[in-house]
């Protein structure tokens, strides 16, 4: 791999990854509630950081030559970034909903506004008040 190709690839991957981080951060100011902010940040973790890893990997190939160890590290890093960010977003959104964060009032339809069908376990024999959905 000659110098020009390597430099161009590193630049394209690194700069587009960084721009994705920047625009994801800017998009967080365009939406109004916690759920949407978690939602619009996924380009940064799902595509921006893997692109930066790709840039580092190309740079590593160019300077130190190909090695299976660095290829393995790059693939593992990309896979872990995608899987971990997905699970982390799930956890964040669940925490945000369960802690009662307000949802933007123009969210329509909002199927979480009522208890999900079949989840509230109502005992027909019980004379108690029906519980709030939990």
């Amino acid at each position: 791999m000659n110098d020009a190709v390597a430099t161009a690839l590193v630049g394209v991957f690194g700069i587009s990854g960084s721009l994705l981080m920047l625009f994801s951060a800017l998009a967080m100011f365009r939406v109004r509630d916690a759920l949407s902010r978690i939602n619009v940040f996924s380009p940064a973790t799902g595509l921006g950081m893997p692109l930066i890893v790709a840039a580092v990997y190309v740079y590593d190939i160019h300077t130190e030559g190909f090695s299976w160890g660095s290829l393995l590290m790059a693939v593992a890093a990309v896979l872990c970034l995608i899987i971990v960010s997905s699970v982390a977003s799930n956890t964040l959104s669940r925490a945000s909903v369960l802690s009662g964060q307000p949802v933007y009032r123009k969210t329509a339809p909002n199927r979480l506004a009522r208890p999900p069908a079949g989840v509230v376990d109502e005992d027909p024999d019980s004379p108690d008040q029906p519980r709030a959905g939990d």
Partner: protein
Amino acid sequence: MMRLIHGISYLFYIGWAIMTGSLTIVARQFLPGRQYAQPMIVEVPLRCVTDLEVTLFASSITITPGTLVTAIAAGTSTQPPVLFVHALFEESEEAALEGLYDMESRLLAMTRGRAPSGPAASSAEVEQEEGSP
């Protein structure tokens, strides 16, 4: 063998969905004169049965930019498990559900070897239960 082919095509599908979703989130900031996002939380009754399928589907939805799983309701003997998905850039609830069912069909083709042929979900039951408080 078919599962391997379906699995590889599913990986490409997820990668393509990540790229187009990221482009949507970035590009819509530069379209003036319209609302940036139309948030909605839709209810998706699942055809996935096992824990692995439900986990993979929820992770796939969340990693796709623009959709986010907010809650998972466990299935009962009569109800399928239900995902509550927060979607930002869909025109309508039907469009959001259609995209999610497309992804679920591809995922089930990967885990089961062929796509399920049955109806998507018993949405009639869900509608019925919404009527009766």
